[in-house]
Structures are given as structure tokens and as C-alpha cells.
């Protein structure tokens, strides 16, 4: 395979695997948040702040991956 093809595959893997991780993480956390706020609705506001904070933290690793993959796709340092 050529370098270009390998880099294209790598971009797909970076985005795809990152998306799997981020989605599972967000899904588990969202489910737990709903569960917790059903049990104790008075905690909803405090939990919501923390949930958004954590959602951003989980999301960040994935979006950094997307950024790097996009950079490989358009401003590629590996393909002459």
C-alpha cells in the first residue's frame, strides 16, 4: 500500500476508535446521571454541572484525535 492509503486508513482508525471510546464514556455517564437524578432529584443541579464538566473532558480526547486526523488528511507531514 502507498503512504497515502495508509495515512487515510490511519485517519479512519483515529476517528473511529476515538468515537467508540468517547461514545461509550458519554453513554455510561449520561445513564448514571439520569439514574442518580431519578433517585435524588434535589441533587440534579449540582450533578448537572459536574456532568457537563466531565462530558467536556471525555469529549476532548476524541476531538483532539479528530483534529490530528484532519491535519494528516490535509496538511500531511508524512506524504511528501
Amino acid at each position, binding site marked *: 500500500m502507498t503512504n497515502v492509503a495508509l495515512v487515510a486508513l490511519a485517519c479512519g482508525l483515529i476517528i473511529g476508535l476515538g468515537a467508540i471510546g468517547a461514545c461509550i464514556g458519554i453513554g455510561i455517564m449520561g445513564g448514571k446521571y439520569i439514574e442518580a437524578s431519578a433517585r435524588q432529584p434535589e441533587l440534579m443541579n449540582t450533578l448537572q454541572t459536574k456532568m*457537563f*464538566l466531565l462530558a*467536556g473532558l471525555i469529549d476532548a480526547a476524541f476531538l483532539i484525535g479528530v483534529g490530528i486526523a484532519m*491535519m494528516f488528511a490535509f496538511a500531511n507531514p508524512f506524504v511528501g
Partner: protein
Amino acid sequence: MATELAPEAANHAAEQAPTASEYIVHHLTHLSTTHQTKIIDFSILNMDTLFWSITLGAITCFVMWLAARRATSGVPGRFQAMVEMLVEMVEDQSKAIVHGNRTFIAPLALTVFVWVILMNAMDFLPVDMFHPLFNLLGLHLDHHRAVPTADLNGTLGMSVGVLALMLYYNIKIKGVGGFIHELFCAPFGAHPLLWIPNFALNLIEFVAKTVSLGMRLFGNMYAGELIFLLIALLGSTATWWGFGMHVIAGTVWSIFHILIVVLQAFIFMMLTLVYIGQAHEGH
């Protein structure tokens, strides 16, 4: 398609309009003093990042100053109510996280929050708006990037500032001796054999905090900017399909990006508070 044209025609077309790759690379090149060849080179200044971050920082301070000066104890207007809500939110968070004197830390968190929101929000301006605008003003710039937080130098600069504050508060709260004692005796224990592992772990912790704080904000904004550029490429196909997709995709991504912009600013502020709060607590 350029590949189907004869070589001369393809060359001609390349002179006329940049290819997708050239367009992206052009938009991702900074207006810097010289061309960067090494990975780390402190002699280069990215003028666009500097200009926009300093301008937006000045706007942040001015707006906050205006709100404080105009504040009344009567019924607040919309502007005052908004600023009051912001101040109250940041104050609540800092009260919960930092235990100690907050006369500097809480205003710092507020400034960082508003400043990062403004810098991130530069992403909402159309990517191809600046070039014609500068031409209109008589400025002929080769390259220009509007989002200061989509520049790794900008975000790492901010996180190094947070690192300096962490070290300052560690020394201020615990004293020089206390801080050095903590560096060598936490987290495993004070046994002389453990001094080196303790110190290595603490060093890694400080570096990891600083790098991840800067990289997180940079990665999110860089990815967002790139996706806006890709959406702009759809419109440049100059077909109805491309135009329609440009409008739809641009709208959807802009709306989603509002969440990311505010969320990342909030996370940057919260982590700044958490890191400074950790400096206030001994092991």
C-alpha cells in the same frame, strides 16, 4: 476535476484556484514573523494570535469594568443581570474548590472564563471573511488565523501561566521548605529510598497537568476550525448541492460548536481553579 484536464490546463487551473489541500493549508498558516522550520523556536512571533488574544483580553477587561462601574443596587438591567449571574456562578465554583484567600483567584477565574469564551467565539466568524475585510482596510496579509485558542502556542502559553500560579501558591501556602518537603515525601512516604520516585511522580504530574490543560483547549478549537474549513470547501464547489450542504452543515456545526466553545471555556476555568485549589491543600 483537475486530474482529467491536460497538464497545461491543470497548471492553469492551479494558478486560478487553490486545490482543497492548498486552501486548508493556506488557512492554517499563521501570520508569523518568519517561517517556522524547527518544532520549538522562541524567536518567532505569531502576530495574528498575539493581536486577537490581546484585543479580546482588553475587551473582556473593559466590559467587566463597565459592568462594575454601572452597577446599581436597584433593579438590574439585562447587561448587569448577565454579568451578575456570571460572577455568582464563578464565585460559587471557586468557593467550593479553593479553600483559602480568594481575592485574586476568583476574579482570575472570571477573567479567564470570559476571555477564553471570546477567543473561542472567533470561530463563529466566517473563515473567508477576514481576507476581503483586510484588503478593504488596505492591509495585504499573506496568512491570517483568527482563533487564538486554535494555536498551540496560545493555549500552552495560558497553561504555563497556570503552572506559574500553581508553583506560586504552593510556595506561598506551604513555604519553600514545605513545598520541597512535599515534592520529595508525597505521595508514597518520607522514607529516603522513596525520595526519587516521589519527586519523579510529582514532576510528571506538574508537566501532565500543564500540557493536558493547553492541549485540550487547542485540540477542541483546532478540530472545530478545521471542520468549518471543510464546510467552507463544500460551498466552494459552486454547485447547488454544495451550497445547500454548506448552509445545512454550517448551521448544524455552528450550533453544536456553541456548546463546545462555552464548555471548553468552563473546563479551562474549572481546571485552573482545581489546580490552584490543589496547591492550597497539603498531603
